[in-house]
């Protein structure tokens, strides 16, 4: 990307303000995806400790079954639920489902694709992620 192209760059791409909840969802989707991939790689490494036998497994478990470990897992649960629910919304949208029908536009030109169905989908994803995170915390710290 050359400087004279005057592109907004990562800062502009990642800025979730200015364009409403849809742009926030885009940003959260990306962030949660990267977070989940990092967790997934870590999880594969974490579970490979089973090959070290009972002592190795328990040693590693002690490292992860801490307050910090539980908090990280709670965030992972939230990311997982948001990414799933919002992912289904986006996937339906990508298929042209729920994006409205083409029609002659009238002033003030409210875009039909940015409709309440998708907004409800986004808010539901955030709400469900929060609930799942709290449930996860209750399960992990309740025991």
């Amino acid at each position: 990307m050359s400087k004279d192209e005057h592109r907004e760059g990562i800062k502009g791409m990642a800025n979730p303000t200015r364009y409403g909840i849809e742009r926030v969802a885009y940003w959260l989707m990306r962030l949660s995806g990267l977070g989940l991939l990092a967790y997934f790689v870590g999880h594969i490494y974490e579970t490979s400790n089973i090959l070290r036998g009972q002592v190795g497994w328990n040693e590693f478990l002690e490292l992860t079954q801490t307050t910090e470990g539980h908090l990280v897992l709670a965030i992972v649960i939230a990311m997982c639920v948001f990414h799933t629910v919002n992912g289904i919304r986006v996937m339906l949208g990508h298929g042209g489902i729920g994006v409205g029908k083409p029609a002659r536009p009238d002033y003030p030109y409210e875009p039909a694709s940015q409709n309440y169905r998708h907004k409800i989908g986004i808010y539901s994803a955030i709400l469900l992620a929060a609930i799942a995170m709290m449930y996860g915390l209750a399960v992990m710290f309740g025991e």
Partner: protein
Amino acid sequence: MAQVSSISNEQTSPTSKLITLRISRFNPEHDESSGFMEFSVSYEKWTTVLEAILDVKKHHDHSVGVRYSCRQATCGSCGMIINGKPRLACFTKISELNSDVVTVEPMNNFPIIRDLAVKFEKLFDTHQKIKPYLIRDDTEIESNEKEFLQSPEEVEQYIQFANCIKCGLCNSACPTMATDSSFVGPQALAQAYRYVADSRDKGKDSRLKIIDDSHGIWRCHFAGSCSQVCPKGVDPAMGIQLLRGYMLGFRS
């Protein structure tokens, strides 16, 4: 480069108010980086941002670079970033911005010619790339009917997307365009849908093939910023998703 100038306007009416107009100044041939010049401008309820810029050009600094033509949101020339969002300067009233400071900058994701004027070559190239014309083997001259009839319902399928004035605001707002210089962009993709959805057109397969590459339609993530800034109600996000519906088998 900051400078504050007050424009003495003899015709100022008692209803007029004052705002500070911050204009981004940058000449790629001379300047290392951009800066802002500030002007105090009087405005009425109906004054547009373009009128305020032209006021500055007329009364204070004629060297401000700005592109405009029709002044009625038809030519698509005066797209710029106004208070952080891409808008048409001729279509944005200062009074509706609810701010004492109006900052105008050149559109993002377009190379700057000077100050507020940007290059449109890339937009026109990608627009041309998706074949923005009817494709079919026969022609009106050879056809017995001499015209390709359409029902009102068939027209409704694409007429919204034919409203595009190629102002580039959608490309400026798109998060993918912010980093991906090879992306086709929402403007061209919406126009691809405009022709694919036209019952007279037979070029669907060739257009879908063009946009089915690593910087094509799949780099749209339905953030919808393009639709939110479109001044003509084209709703590019809808067109792109409907177009993708063909590729995913949801539409035929």
